[in-house]
């Protein structure tokens, strides 16, 4: 355990402000720096800039959608350590499979339990540390 506080950056991308607020409220802590994006294009610009440890992406957004973003992240060697949680409105198996196949670490369906989302965030961050 390091004594110095390490700030991990987490990006939250959703076109719905209340959803961003819910996710931010759920995951924020004094060791995490939360960055918000309101559409897919803004999300991609911020991902390139901050190289976050974890991104939480809404699947259906204006601009690049969540699936396109996961693929872009997985194709980018600079972002090898970035973990991805997709947040989707579809509970269809086929959509979940497509999300996981694109390279997401976890796939969460709306509505979700903040406690469960937080557990997934912590699991993803642990993976991130292992990889990085």
């Amino acid at each position, binding site marked *: 355990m390091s004594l110095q506080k390490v700030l991990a950056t987490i990006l939250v991308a959703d076109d719905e402000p209340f959803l961003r607020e819910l996710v931010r409220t759920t995951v924020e802590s004094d060791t995490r720096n939360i960055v918000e994006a309101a559409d897919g294009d803004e999300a991609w610009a911020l991902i390139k800039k901050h190289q976050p440890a974890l991104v939480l992406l809404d699947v259906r957004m*204006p601009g690049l959608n969540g699936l396109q973003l996961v693929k872009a992240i997985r194709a980018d060697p600079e972002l090898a350590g970035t973990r991805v949680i997709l947040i989707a409105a579809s509970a269809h198996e086929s959509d979940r499979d497509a999300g996981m196949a694109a390279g997401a670490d976890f796939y969460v369906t709306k509505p979700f339990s903040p*406690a469960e989302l937080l557990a997934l965030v912590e699991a993803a961050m642990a993976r991130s540390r292992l990889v990085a």
Partner: protein
Amino acid sequence: MSRATIDWDATGSEASRSAALADPGKFEAVFNVMPDAIVVCDEEGRIAFVNRQTELLTGYQRSELSGELVEMLIPAPARATHAALRTQYGEHPTTRTMGTDLNINVRCRDGTDIPVDIALSPVETDEGLRIVAVVRDMRERLGIEAKLKADADAEMARAKDELISLVSHEMRTPLASIVGFAELLITRDSSVDQRQRYLEIMLQEGKRLTGLINDFLDLQRLEGGHHKLRTAETDLAQLVKRAVDSVPVDSKTPIKMDFPADLPMVAVDPDAVLQVLTNLLSNARKYSPDGGEIVISGHRSGESVEVSIDDHGLGLAPDELNKLFNKFYRAERAERLRIKGTGLGLAICRRIVEAHGGHIEATSSGIGKGTTFTFTVPVSLPSPASADVVLLEDDHGFAKLLEAELKANGLTSVWAPEVQTANKLIDKSSAKAVVLDLMLPDIQGEEFLIGLRTTRGSNIPVVIVTMRPVGPEEQAALKALGATAIFGKSAKSVRAAAALLRDALKP
């Protein structure tokens, strides 16, 4: 069917035509290049000639068919009755098809049946009557039809899937806020301010979800044709005024009304058209983020009144104009600017306008140049000028009940959902009495009563039927204003009111 008649004229006279049939060998070359099978029979139903295509279709050689009864080419169920049908046809021969929807088949040499379309044509020859059957192989066409149907089914299933996915997305998003913040409220220690904030979001998103469900159900009802229009003769300008009053005042986007005084009455469902107007007006506001005047105007155009709503807002690209009325469609720029919407409002508007026999369209000079929505509603055709009683009542169901009861008493009536309509009807019809509800959307019944007594004096009986409890003092006050009688809203009082009017009008 042109192919039912073989056009011999090019080759010569009626005589040569008969000769050709008597000895089809002469025309064999012509018959053999025809894409359809041709079978010529004599009066006994014996095959006199077949062309090359018949051999290809059935697998029989010409020599095997020649002189045989034509029934050998007909599959079992139809074979038994065919001889009788053939005899009937011989008695009244005409050029006709055997019927494409009859599922006619030809039995081939190998026992298989092939779907065909057959055209029959009688030809008199020197050797007697000949029947020419032109037989077309329908396998390809039926295959194409089956494929088209399968494609259409697949397209419908795809559209349905897409719809379900959209509805799911639209509904789960507000639900996620409600469920999520509720859990945070229960499981976390939050400050008073935070709790207040979470509850506000939950309320707002709960309302959004409710609106979405209502819109969606409205649309389903409209699309299923289950929505019955409650058409009434309506003063459109008055309805527009109600719509304008119902959208919140905003000085950035003032709404200007421009309706000529002599606009004819329209025959519409006032509630449904109010929904269209409110929707278009709030859209005009919503998509004018930088403000700008909104003008709503109307004019007569033939048997319709055309209503236009003009804004100075975001405008639309040409390719967006057509898609605008599709379910869940949202314009790209509105999405980018994060202007909220379900994409259902305009789909609902379109259905309502179309249910009235009108049409709706959007025009725009382009992005940033504002949008104009125009829709039409039918002009009310010669009004029921002969009605005895005007029913000023905003509840359609209750108006129907009154109408039925008056009819049972030999009185005709006409429904007016609001005051302006009632006044116009009283002015131009022969109405001799009014049934008045006290609680109306625009003004109170008392005001109407005062107005009526001022303009028309005291010779029109006015019977009040109201939900509002009326105490003895108010009763006296209403009678002083000229009310003939006052009833509560019940089946019994409707009967009493109708009987009273009958006695008053038909002494």
